């Protein structure tokens, strides 16, 4: 198991968990190619196949963060090469708006990233996962559930309200 505490001590012996949304035609196949080529990358990515990044509902991203993911990586075909003409442009715009919105909620834009890899780019896929993992590792764990537990002070402690 890789040691992520070197990036940020908050990891302890844990590893980042990144949810991936890969489009069926380019990036999922790039991931397949990375596999058949035996390109190693950190075991941080858990991916979901969608037909097109155009299917990427921002709800899925916030859901993944809420459920404990430390980052979300959306990967599609290169701009201009979408199997469905321009689903990836829609993803580009949604992610841009989502990143701005999430930044206001204290979620660093590096935690939600959009990248491209064609079916032939197993290497680019691998590098993207490595880079994303390192970025998220530096940011530290997300653990959104901590944000949902109330920390109301006990009145006995006499701290300000």
């Amino acid at each position, binding site marked *: 198991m890789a040691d992520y505490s070197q990036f940020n001590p908050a990891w302890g012996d844990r590893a980042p968990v990144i949810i991936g949304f890969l489009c069926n035609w380019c990036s999922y196949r790039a991931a397949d190619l990375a596999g058949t080529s035996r390109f190693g990358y950190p*075991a941080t990515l858990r991916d979901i196949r969608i037909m097109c990044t155009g299917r990427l509902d921002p709800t899925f991203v916030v859901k993944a963060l809420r459920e404990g993911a430390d980052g979300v990586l959306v990967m599609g075909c290169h701009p201009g090469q979408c199997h469905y003409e321009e689903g990836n442009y*829609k993803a580009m715009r949604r992610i841009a708006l989502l990143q701005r919105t999430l930044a206001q909620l204290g979620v660093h834009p590096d935690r939600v990233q959009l990248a491209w890899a064609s079916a032939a780019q197993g290497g680019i896929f691998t590098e993207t996962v490595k880079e994303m993992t390192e970025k998220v590792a530096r940011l530290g764990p997300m653990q959104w559930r901590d944000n949902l537990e109330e920390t109301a002070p006990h009145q006995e402690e006499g701290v300000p309200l």
Partner: protein
Amino acid sequence: MSEEKVGVYVCHCGHNIAGTVNVEEVSEWAGQLPNVAVAKDYKFMCSSLGQEMVEEDIKKEGLTRVVVAACSPHMHEPTFRGACQRAGMNPYLFEMANIREHASWVHQDDKPAATEKAKAIISGAVRRSLELAPLEPFRAPINKTTLVVGGGIAGINAALEIAGAGYKVLLVEREPSIGGHMAQFDKTFPTLDCAACILTPKMFDVGNSPNIELLTYSEVEQVDGYVGNFTVRIRKRARKIDTTLCTGCGDCWERCPAKVIDDVYESGLGYRTAVYRPFPQAVPKYPVIDTESCIYFKNGRCKACEKFCPTGAIKFDQEDEVVVVNVGNIVLATGYDVFDARRIPAYGYGRLANVFTSMEFERMTNASGPTDGKVVLRDGVTAPETVAIIHCVGSRDKNTNVYCSATCCMAALKFAHLVKEKTNAQVYNFYIDMRTAFKDYELFYTRLLEEGTHFIRGRAAEVTDAARLPGEEGKLIVQAEDTLIGKQRRVPVDMVILMVAMEPRADASEVAHRFGIGCSDAGFFTERHPKLDPVATMTEGIFIAGTCQGPKDIPASVSQGEATAARVLGLIGKGEVQIEPVRAQIDEDRCSGCRICNNLCPYNAIDFIAEKGVSRVNPAQCKGCGTCVAACPSQVITGQHYTYDSIMSQIEGLLYDVRSPNEKVRVVEMEPA
């Protein structure tokens, strides 16, 4: 909790998965998951025994969902869907967990992490499977007409094979004649038989086949539809010639006063007129008027061709014509472009007169070429006494193209032989490696060695006219490290031939996009599988042949052309296709008509029904990308097989180990009132 009974099967894939992922542990763990009724691991799930195990469990254990944790769904999803179907389960209730390409093969250095990841992937797949709904594939009849794009040797063979089996073919070619690059060649390696002699009969057959409709000087502009039912829009560029009247007599081009350099057929080494037929054996025989160089189109005068045309076939006012056709299958055989040697300035092409490209040399040695087949310097008269042939110009070079262009070594040998035969000049080949694979090629190499051709193993550093040593004055000097003797060599020569690379067509990515297929890093069209499915693409019903798929020689292009024909005929023989029922659907009762989705669909499948104030998806046009599904602000569009619930559940499943326990968004349970 759901009542579904899930069977989970963890494949060892020999050592491919089991060597990294602890499959026994994973399978035992999966057995504990909610709803999982059966969890097993097995050596090879895709074997007939593995498939039978699934079928038996569906029947005996009453499984309602099946998850196979093995390889990529692109590999074996159809296999296991078939097994489920045979056992009476709807195939769309099957879910694949990719723990090979996405886990065992990429985390070989971290086995515990790979095992944990495999669990997460399976957990996600199980959760997703519970949300799947049974679907029925659409069936559609196959249109028996085939579109072949590109009339080079690959496209010609594909067209002839399909037409020969009795089906209609539409052959579209961008240039005024079919023939492609092969028509430019003089001899073909290694047999040295004449290219025209073997190509022309095939071209003639195409022109005369009752089943082939030939559209030259035409381009495909738009492709819609799906396998079996494509609608294609083709632009027939105006030839400015009425082909029903033209006899191909040649009076027009003989009288045409506008001479321009022919960059296409003559590779820039010769001239043609503004009204021209690319070469004498052209099919069809009709000329075209190149309006860019025609004097009449430039300044409104001349019309010499019109005056002399005996049949009145010249039509200056003819306009482009757009035809829309329906076809069932498409073969792309769009060929290659040659590398522009000016991109390597050190070789002096364009600066130094006597540096030629291999395509220029092909034309030079061709008996019908600009020099009538004489090998001469740029002055047009002097025969060279020494010739250098530089290999790998634009190939095997990280500055340009990293791949090997596959044909240049053999073409270089052919050139060396032709130079020797025609001029008796000394020939120096500067090569990195000699690559003479395939039948009888090595024999040809041996023959050239015996003919006395010089072979210097070393990539040429530069071609220069900067003389340094005696004997270099007035010559071109090729500098290279001879790696066999470990010395720098400077070879003064009269002529240099650059063996330029094959590159993807300049518009290959645009064309790929138009047809909905992919391109490799280098830019060549991507085949479905590099070994086992070399002429199919990721898009059903679209096949690729020849050099558009990668550099290859004539025999390989011909084989691929014929292979595509076999694939097309196979589909036509089946009569109908099954199409994935992944489609979007709008709940019209709940659509508020906000029209957000209306212009998102790249296929215009969404109509706004003004009377009802709702939007509607036309399932025949929808391709299931899901863009509208994600965009709907009232969440009333459903994307079949990739539903909201299925993906949300998969997220929860994938994060099973990091989720906070018992987390619920909304508490709805209540005590009885």
